[in-house]
């Protein structure tokens, strides 16, 4: 039986992955001791730390990182956006290591998403923000947006991308960012911009690009090397993100999803 290793399985995408691939054994790996998913018969759970990821990955058919914390490369927003600003100027919302004294700013995690509710304000209002989770902090221009759109998928080489463009109707922010409601759309301009970005970075692996519609047009607000909780919807839309990547495959428009609250009992993972 095919084995999928889900690294950082405390994320919402873990149960999405397990539900989408019921014929595979999906191993939830997390350093948290309480996880959702114990009712899914194809799920096994393992307590481990990011340092153990390479060893665990050796015996899996697919490795799906669900949080950038579990990846060894440098995917920090500050680094990625710096590269993109040079390669594709004007496409990204600017990132700062410290909030300038004027303007409104939103706080983000640099190396991975900062947990909990988003914080925004001017420099004075953000003066107390610290980094207890070690994700690194960056500050991004906070502007009114009229839409949020995500490009989610996996790229293996130039011309080899599985991708879906998802209009986000609602996202909720707790420990994890929850994709609450969205729908895949047909957006050729955004598709091409997303592929340009992935090519400029020569990114290999999973990705989520976060786009926001501003008064000045679409701007990239985030890049993370992970997928989101879209696996079932993307399969319905004709794209297997985990499958062999040989061309550009695009998820059909009109795939709708919500996040349903689910209650299951748990056993604490041994530490």
């Amino acid at each position, binding site marked *: 039986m095919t084995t999928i290793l889900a690294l950082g399985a405390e994320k*919402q995408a873990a*149960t*999405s992955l397990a*539900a989408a691939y019921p014929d595979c054994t999906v191993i939830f790996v997390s350093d948290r001791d*309480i*996880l*959702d*998913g114990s009712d899914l018969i194809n799920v096994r759970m393992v307590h481990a730390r990011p340092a153990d990821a390479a060893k665990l990955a050796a015996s899996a058919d697919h490795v799906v990182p669900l949080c950038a914390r579990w990846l060894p490369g440098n995917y920090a927003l500050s680094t990625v956006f710096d590269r993109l600003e040079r390669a594709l100027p004007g496409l990204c919302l600017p990132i700062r290591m410290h909030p300038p004294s004027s303007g409104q700013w939103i706080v983000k995690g640099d190396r991975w998403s900062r*947990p*909990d*509710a988003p*914080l925004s*304000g001017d420099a*004075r*209002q*953000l*003066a*107390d*923000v610290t980094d*207890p*989770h070690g994700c690194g902090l960056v500050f991004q221009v906070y502007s009114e947006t009229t839409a949020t759109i995500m490009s989610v998928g996996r790229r293996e080489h130039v011309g080899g991308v599985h991708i879906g463009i998802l209009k986000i*109707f*609602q996202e*909720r922010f*707790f*420990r994890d960012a*929850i*994709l*609450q*409601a969205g*729908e895949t759309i047909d957006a050729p301009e955004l598709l091409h911009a997303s592929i340009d970005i992935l090519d400029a970075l020569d990114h290999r692996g999973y990705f989520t690009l976060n786009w926001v519609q501003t008064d000045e047009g679409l701007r990239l607000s985030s890049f993370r090397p992970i997928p989101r*909780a*879209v*696996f*079932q*919807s993307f399969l*319905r839309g004709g794209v297997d993100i985990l499958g062999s990547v040989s061309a550009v495959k695009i998820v059909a428009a009109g*795939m*709708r*999803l*919500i*996040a*349903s*609250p*689910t*209650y*299951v*009992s*748990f056993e604490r993972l041994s530490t």
Partner: protein
Amino acid sequence: MKNVLVLSGTASAINYIKSFANDPDIRLHITDADPYCPGLYAPGVTPHVVPRARDTMRYRASLDRLLVEHAIDVLIPTSDYDIEGVVHYLKDGWVPNVAMFRPPFNAFAVLGNKGRLMAYLAQRLPSVVPQTWIGVERVRQLAFPVVIKPAGESGGKDVTIVRYHDDFAAAVERIRALYGDEFLVQQFIPGNTYIVSMIYDHDGRLVIGVPMRSHLTFFTWGGGGCAGEVVDEPGLVRLCAEVAEAAGGWSGPINFEWRKHAETGAFYLMEANCRLNGYSYLTTMNGVCLPHIVLALLTGAPLPAVAPPARRNRNFVLGFRETPVDRWVDHAERIVA
């Protein structure tokens, strides 16, 4: 067949939906202002999108229409905003022809606002009240850490724990930008969060109280629970009953959130919410179906049997699972009054 209208489609409404949706004797109607709210897409429900409850005139008109058009027999508000709206309508003379709880307005005015509740109880049950400051003029007297929270929200929304005096001004600036002066500063109580969900009958008699404890919170710093278990704490239920009585009594569901001090073991009241708690489905998982108790009290049916405390041993973790849907709730189901 009873037409039951549950206001709101998330948090505590999930317990009602999971408990009622497959009952052949109930036609379950769910409302929410958010057309993407998960409860609207639960199997077996009739969804309605309504104006926001704080848009009071339009919301009330849409409720009146729904009650008539769908011959609603039972009305159950489940979110803080819905309850606030309904309680105010009742005070203003609203007399809908449905079975519903009509809690005393004065008690709601105390219980539904953290600042007022703390000030009120400081005189009557001071041992359960964390030190609380409304306004920041007396900040020099604070012993850090403290918690800054909006007076009228719940679930950890826009709460900040401030550990050092130097960080206090920024946190106050931030909450003031959102809520003006409607916030309070409170002593931080280290320890676990407990919740007691209770149901009072029409005459203000306590029917049941179920204590629960969180193992995991929505936010890394705390907030509402997303994993937990039922516990046997009869003393805590009695404490809740004292709080409700001190506030003027209650009718219907209500929950009280507490922190058990990690060092002293003393319980401190954090807030009251005039509804079942967000994860009250845990009680249903454990053989205590609070929604069916609510329904029985509203319809005059016999109260359902409940499992004894010793058998309430299932814990829970809350997940938010990707669920494909075929269509969004369409305009025909959107009630705009």
